[in-house]
């Protein structure tokens, strides 16, 4: 399948590979110093657009263009999951990713120009063996090595500017017209390999890896191309702990939101990423890796990457929704962490001591503008009680020693939800201490659909009628949340409504792509996972 699927929007989703920091993407417009065209970049692990510390770097680290006799050539791009090709009239250049940290390049008849604008504290180095090392400060290092043919480049240092001249590295073919090269990325030190594996073997392995990845999802009934694109997005968003960094936060492979700009793990999104898998072991593995991010006292950070964890506020315990589906596959440590998670919320987020957990900070909802917190008073929210209800019910089934305790907690959470936060017509948020109603995003009140038949019948009916009447799934922002409504409708056996929501989301994807919101500049794993979940759940 990989070889027939073409990635067409390289400006929205890069060419890359699972676990690799490399990406090749297309910039459509020129921007001052930065030409339009194909760029090589690395996952930055920083919360900044473009993800780089160095002021001025708005784009990828290296601009790539085919050359012949020193002149740049026009080209077309073609990309499959395992290979990207620059097609010119004089010959083609092909890229594939070998081990996640090595990008391989080959061409026939043409060479490749790698142009890297450099900024302060970025350093080029000519190594003893003639290869080029580029040091990009906080982003990482890159080594460019000619395997066949030659690498010619400049490394002029401008002392008083604390920087080098922009580097131009021309990779040119040998006399037989063949050029082969490797680009390594690394954090500390690196040496070129003595021997490089055949290019075709690397490409085949990448293709096979993608095929194996696709098998973790349910085979599509509908649009094959969208399925391929969605699974490609989730595949390349899988990142790993930095192998040569002595302090790294990720403890297992995790799915980033995207690769350029939101290159971090958002824990609010993780349940959908897990739920999208059909392979139960894949679900359990992702959930286990999420739970491994837990602090010693049971708190899950709102987001993290290899470098920076956000413990300023907690992630909501929404992981319970995915964990409930996978309880049979979760290992002991994961289950005990779920228990710790529940205890954390009970201990640290019940300021009224009334058994109702609350959000201390607005962003703990997972929504950017989720809640109005005033005067420091925490807010009881229906989505939070839903997650806690599901979590404690899961624990009642899995915690052999304290099943009854958790059953009671679950019942209590449900009771608080329906008694305190249901106002007869809708679910509302209420302020701690005063219990006054609080302004919040409507969607918080829809999340209880996930409780399905646990909700009293009249509440479930009114809730789903309201959700349906308002077409609450038709969002402009955090669009993948539509998947939760699909799930909720299915839990309540309201298939038509589930299909209405699902079809709307699929239409959104067809029109806007796999984005989290209208106008987003990159596709996201969250949106892709929502698509995969919805199409699998609805069989469409």
């Amino acid at each position, binding site marked *: 399948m990989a070889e027939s699927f073409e990635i067409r929007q390289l400006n929205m989703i890069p060419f890359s590979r699972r676990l690799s920091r490399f990406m090749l993407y297309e910039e459509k417009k020129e921007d001052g110093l930065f030409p339009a065209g194909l760029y090589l970049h690395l996952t930055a692990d920083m919360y900044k657009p473009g993800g780089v510390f160095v002021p001025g770097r708005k784009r990828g680290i290296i601009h790539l263009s085919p050359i012949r006799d020193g002149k740049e050539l026009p080209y077309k791009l073609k990309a499959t999951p395992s290979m990207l090709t620059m097609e010119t009239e004089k010959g083609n250049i092909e890229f594939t990713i070998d081990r996640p940290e090595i990008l391989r390049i080959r061409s026939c008849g043409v060479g490749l120009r790698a142009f890297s604008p450099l900024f302060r504290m970025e350093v080029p*180095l000519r190594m003893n063996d003639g290869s080029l090392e580029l*040091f990009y400060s906080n982003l990482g290092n890159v080594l460019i090595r000619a395997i066949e043919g030659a690498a010619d480049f400049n490394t002029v240092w401008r002392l008083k500017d604390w920087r080098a001249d922009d580097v131009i590295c021309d990779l040119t073919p040998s006399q037989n017209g063949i050029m082969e090269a490797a680009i390594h990325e690394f954090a500390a030190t690196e040496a070129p390999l003595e021997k490089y594996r055949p290019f075709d073997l690397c490409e085949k392995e990448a293709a096979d890896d993608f095929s194996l990845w696709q098998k973790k999802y349910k085979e599509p009934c509908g649009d094959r191309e969208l399925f391929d694109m969605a699974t490609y997005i989730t595949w390349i968003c899988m990142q790993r702990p930095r192998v040569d960094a002595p302090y790294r936060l990720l403890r297992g492979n995790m799915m980033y939101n995207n690769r350029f700009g939101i290159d971090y793990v958002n824990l609010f999104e993780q349940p959908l990423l897990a739920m999208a898998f059909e392979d139960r072991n894949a679900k359990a593995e992702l959930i286990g890796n999420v739970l491994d991010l837990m602090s010693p006292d049971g708190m899950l950070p709102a987001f993290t990457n290899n470098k920076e964890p956000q413990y300023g506020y907690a992630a909501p315990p929404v992981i319970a929704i995915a964990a409930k589906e996978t309880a049979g596959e979760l290992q002991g440590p994961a289950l005990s962490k779920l228990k710790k998670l529940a205890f954390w919320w009970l201990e640290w987020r019940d300021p009224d001591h009334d058994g109702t957990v609350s959000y201390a900070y607005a962003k703990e909802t997972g929504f950017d503008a989720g809640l109005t917190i005033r*005067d420091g008073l*925490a807010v009881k929210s229906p989505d939070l009680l839903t997650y806690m209800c599901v979590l404690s019910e899961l624990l009642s089934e899995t915690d052999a020693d304290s099943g009854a305790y958790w059953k009671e907690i679950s019942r209590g959470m449900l009771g608080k939800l329906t008694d305190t936060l249901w106002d007869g017509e809708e679910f509302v948020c209420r302020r701690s201490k005063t219990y006054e109603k609080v302004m919040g995003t409507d969607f918080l009140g829809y999340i209880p659909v996930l409780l399905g038949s646990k909700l009293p019948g009249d509440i479930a009916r009114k809730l789903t009628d309201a959700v349906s009447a308002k077409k609450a799934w038709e969002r402009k922002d955090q669009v993948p949340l539509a998947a939760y409504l699909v799930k909720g409708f299915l839990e309540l056996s309201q298939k038509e409504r589930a299909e209405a929501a699902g079809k709307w989301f699929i239409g959104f994807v067809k029109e806007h792509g796999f984005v989290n919101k209208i106008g987003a500049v990159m596709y996201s794993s969250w949106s892709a996972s929502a698509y995969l979940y919805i199409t699998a759940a609805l069989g469409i």
Partner: protein
Amino acid sequence: MFGHNQPFDLQRMPWGRKMSMFIVYEDFYNHDLYLSHVRTGILQSERKNLFRMQPVTGGEILEYTYFADEKHLRMDTGKGSVELCLDELDQVRIRGRGVGLRLTCPMPGDKCEGLFDKRDGSIEISFGIAGKSLWLPLQGEMDRKISYDNEGSVSEIVIEFDPDDGGAFEAAAHEYILNRKRDAYYRPFDEIMQDSAESFKNFKNCYMPPVPGYEDTTNYAQYVVWTHMQGRDGQNGAFKQPLVYMHRQWFAMAFSWQQSFNAMAMLNDTGEAWRLLTSLIDYQLDSGMFPGQISTFDVKTSVPQAAMQGFAFSHILENAGDGFLTPERCEKAYEPFCKWTRFWIEYHGTGEPDHLQYLNLYESGWDDGTVFINGIPCQAPDVYALVSLQCEMCGKMAGVLGKTEEARAWNDRAKRFVDVLVKDYWDGETFVPVVTPTKEKVANRSLVSYLPIILGKRLPEHIVDKIARTLIAEGEYLTDIGLTAESLKSPHVSFSRVFYVMGKVLSPANMFITVGLKRAGKDKEAREIARRWCDKIKKSGFLLGFAPLPTEVNGEPYIDPNVPNAGDTWSWTSWSAACFLTVSHYVLNT
């Protein structure tokens, strides 16, 4: 120590305490004191302005003077006073008599997540990735007011502590990353103050007695290092043991080679010196490399720093004896240091036997030195000196462990690096670097070309004599306040803030040279340079660098706005303090 009517204030050096993440700065612009907690891995992050502190009474803000030392910080108004002290865990204590204290936190929404009333008398304020603080009254009242912007984000938080009917208030605040509740018991304020004083007093025992005439300066230096020692465990961070930060803001991280600068100053506590010297072993990579910087959230591995441990080790050995070098310590440290030394030899070899190079300017520490004017990789003379001393260090440890052959091999290697340095790089006047790819010699007038003087008597006498003559000559490198990092006769010399080693008088450079000259038997020259530099430090504080002239050499003004910034002419640094402690004791002490 610091404050009004004191030699120094808190504009360039924060008040703090060893292992406490709290600091207090005087703001350069409004001259108020700000309480902050600083926990960052971001280079050049500025985090000094979290809570503006203002004594108040009846809602009226009062003017005040302040005094700060190792025990406490006191703000005096005409109507009463406020005091702060720090414990060695996570707490700041505040008490007032006759007045209250207002703390104002003007934060844009993306820096502050909000305030959480825990309904147990305490409030938590979250600053996102930077951490949280928990505030509570112990005596008197605590009031708070939160303002929001049009988008509903927090725009300002004001906390006010007001006295009770007896006219006193007391409060506590904790800083942390994860979660915290109020303690069940709070120690008496005076006990914490005493504890802090005791901690500093014990810390001073790491050092030899001060040199006459520099007692106060020594006390300040020790205070700087003490307050910059950071790294509590258990907070989900990267620290494995306490390390010395370079700054408490801006470069708020522990730089690899600076741990060695600090170690060599602690001659009265070789155990602590050894601990710092070996501290980077915790982070060693498979290649043998030690990372460049450590902070709460990051260990930077992109560029190593120069191999300074051998130089520091030899200094400690020569001055404190080898009693600290037990077989147990050598057993733990020998292999890692061999690996680190081999990393330099193998990864930084030029391809020619026993020839070394820097691959990146930032490895050397002479970031914009003219040794690199023709680019990199560059065979700079200091790398030979430092790696040679690394080899000696390995040889010494091998000897302690009874590994005779290995000891001999390391010592031979050490000597070979010196031989290559002298044979291939000394041109009769100076050591001349070479750019490896083109083999061109680099004409330059950087002081680093004389750094091999740290080898002392391992260098031939004629070279030592020449270096001493050059460096003691007025107007070349020597100025009234010490040696410039670039010759005053160099066409590139500049004292502008934008440059680092292009001309300013820098602490580490003066330490290297004066210690080296003394080792080489050039006591008189060493003392003269050291005296000038130490006197400047005594007068102006522990800045990293000073411009030796009021203008550039050519009379043009240089760029130095002299406002708070991450550069070397504003903030005090533990690096300078450590250099002063070494130079004053070793070179000036008779």
